[in-house]
């Protein structure tokens, strides 16, 4: 089956229409570089302000520590604890993802990554979907990395293939899933094959899109154009710092909002509502996928979380949880929205949900 040319699906850059209409702006960019390093007074204001905020926070924290616990209602306190837990657990992965993204974008020679990949689109996506074997970063950390791949010249469907497959097809996830389930009921094998299959089907489907650029959020698409328009005028150090600031300022609010929503739902929605659905073959699958969506737990450890449900739910439902959750959950949707359009995410969620449910039904039939 044919596929559109790689360039046609690539994020807008200097080699396509998106770059040529910015020639004048490039010129402006060169002027900056020739003028040499300069710092705005605002930078010093930010520095002074930052130090002031830090000192104020330390002072406030000292005061509140002496005041002791605030006596918040348990659900509110647990909401804060759960949300903070998600943020603290995800933060290092996000930083690692941003660091790897910077490495790919700034420090690895431009042609190197693209040259080592197969030319055939199917083979290329298949290899990209296995990148996670060497990058054992959980799903939230893969978002900045996927963004970096798009900026580095990978097509948008290719970035999606990586983003979807990497959390499942990585050594940490494989080991923890094996620790939890062994080879019982084919759960481990179904998870790995399912993750690979869904990622590559998604990549293939989106590669057929007539206008791949429209898959991106407007803001990210614009950033890709700007990167390519005058990124080459800056030193690697400046590019590194620029990317860090940009990525962290976009991703951290998304992470916080996703974590707050996930924590809130965990506290507010009675567990019985989900578990009561567990006895029905079809509804149990739906319940497991809803549970995966709500709890937004890291793919590296979700097997341990779902293990207690294994005696209540059918194996296919467990597989649906283990495949759907790492790709689509509240936290991931918030993070992915920084990169892809809402329409894209609706399509992606629908496809992944249908395929996860289908996979679960097959496992239930076979197991």
């Amino acid at each position: 089956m044919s596929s559109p040319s790689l360039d046609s699906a690539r994020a807008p850059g200097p080699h396509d229409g998106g770059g040529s209409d910015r020639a004048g702006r490039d010129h402006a960019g060169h002027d900056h570089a020739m003028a040499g390093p300069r710092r705005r007074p605002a930078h010093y204001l930010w520095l002074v302000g930052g130090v002031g905020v830090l000192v104020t926070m330390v002072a406030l924290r000292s005061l509140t520590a002496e005041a002791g616990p605030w006596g918040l209602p348990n659900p509110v306190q647990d909401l804060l604890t759960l949300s903070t837990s998600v943020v603290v657990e995800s933060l290092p992965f996000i930083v690692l993802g941003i660091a790897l993204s910077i490495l790919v974008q700034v420090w690895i020679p431009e042609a190197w990554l693209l040259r080592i990949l197969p030319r055939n689109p199917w083979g290329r996506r298949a290899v990209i979907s296995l990148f996670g074997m060497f990058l054992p970063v959980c799903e939230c950390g893969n978002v900045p990395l996927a963004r970096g791949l798009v900026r580095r010249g990978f097509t948008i469907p290719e970035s999606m293939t990586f983003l979807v497959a990497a959390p499942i097809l990585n050594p940490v996830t494989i080991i923890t899933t094996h620790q939890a389930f062994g080879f019982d009921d084919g759960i481990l094998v179904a998870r790995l094959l399912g993750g690979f299959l869904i990622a590559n089907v998604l990549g293939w489907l989106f590669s057929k899109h007539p206008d791949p650029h429209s898959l991106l959020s407007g803001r990210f698409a614009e950033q890709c154009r700007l990167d390519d328009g005058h990124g080459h005028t800056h030193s690697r150090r400046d590019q590194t710092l620029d990317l860090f600031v940009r990525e962290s300022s976009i991703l951290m609010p998304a992470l916080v909002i996703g974590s707050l929503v996930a924590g809130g739902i965990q506290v507010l929605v009675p567990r019985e509502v989900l578990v009561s659905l567990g006895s029905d073959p079809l509804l149990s699958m739906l319940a497991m996928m809803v549970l995966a969506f709500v709890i937004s737990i890291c793919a590296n450890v979700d097997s341990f979380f779902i293990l207690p449900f294994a005696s209540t739910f059918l194996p296919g439902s467990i597989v649906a949880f283990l495949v759907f959750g790492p790709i689509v959950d509240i936290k991931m949707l918030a993070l992915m929205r920084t990169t892809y359009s809402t329409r894209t995410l609706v399509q992606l969620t629908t496809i992944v949900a249908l395929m996860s449910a289908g996979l679960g039904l097959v496992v239930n039939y076979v197991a």
Partner: protein
Amino acid sequence: MAAITLWLAVTGQLALYIHPRYNVFTVTMSIIAVVLAVASVVGRRDHDDEDAPPPRRSQRALGLTAAAVAGLFTLGMVLVPPASLSTATADQREMNATAGGDEESLAAAATADEASIARFTVREWAAILRQTSDLSFFADKPVTDLVGFVIADEDDPENVFYVSRFVVTCCAVDAQPLGVPVHLPDWAATFEPDSWVSVSGEFASNPSSSSLQPVAVIPDTVDSVEQPREPYLF
């Protein structure tokens, strides 16, 4: 947020949120984040996206809202004292659903010496209770200073409570409650749910007629204690 994470690590409170095995990784990446953040403020040159078209009003509003939520949340992380999960979350998750244990561990527990038995935590007892209710097994195995928080047995909340601990695999989100039933009529008159206690006593047939637990601790002493520095079991 990275700075707050470092502060939590320095004050030994990271264990309220994540498994200690991630401490080194978390601290390392937080240091990198703080260094890059400081470097970006101090050393970054001025080449922001002057070419970028101004964001639409809706984009600006969305961005500001997200930044405000993140800012408020960060402020909350600073101001609200860190706390472990409470009975509100335990109620949302099935008690002892993850209590492990197999025949080998049961056999090992059966032949354990007194000192080892005295060190059993909620995790070990919950695993044993999941596998056997044979009272002869518990005959020479008293419970000694079993520490956990109090949560009512939903089937007989007036007379039975669990000495409970959360077991955390990765972070507080995956915390699963384990508990050992204690029969103490009208316990709520003395102890609040969520308060931490130390229980000593012996296992016996559960006197409660409505509790589903066949075996429970008949306590000799139940003392209020401070929450441990690491409230979760890992």
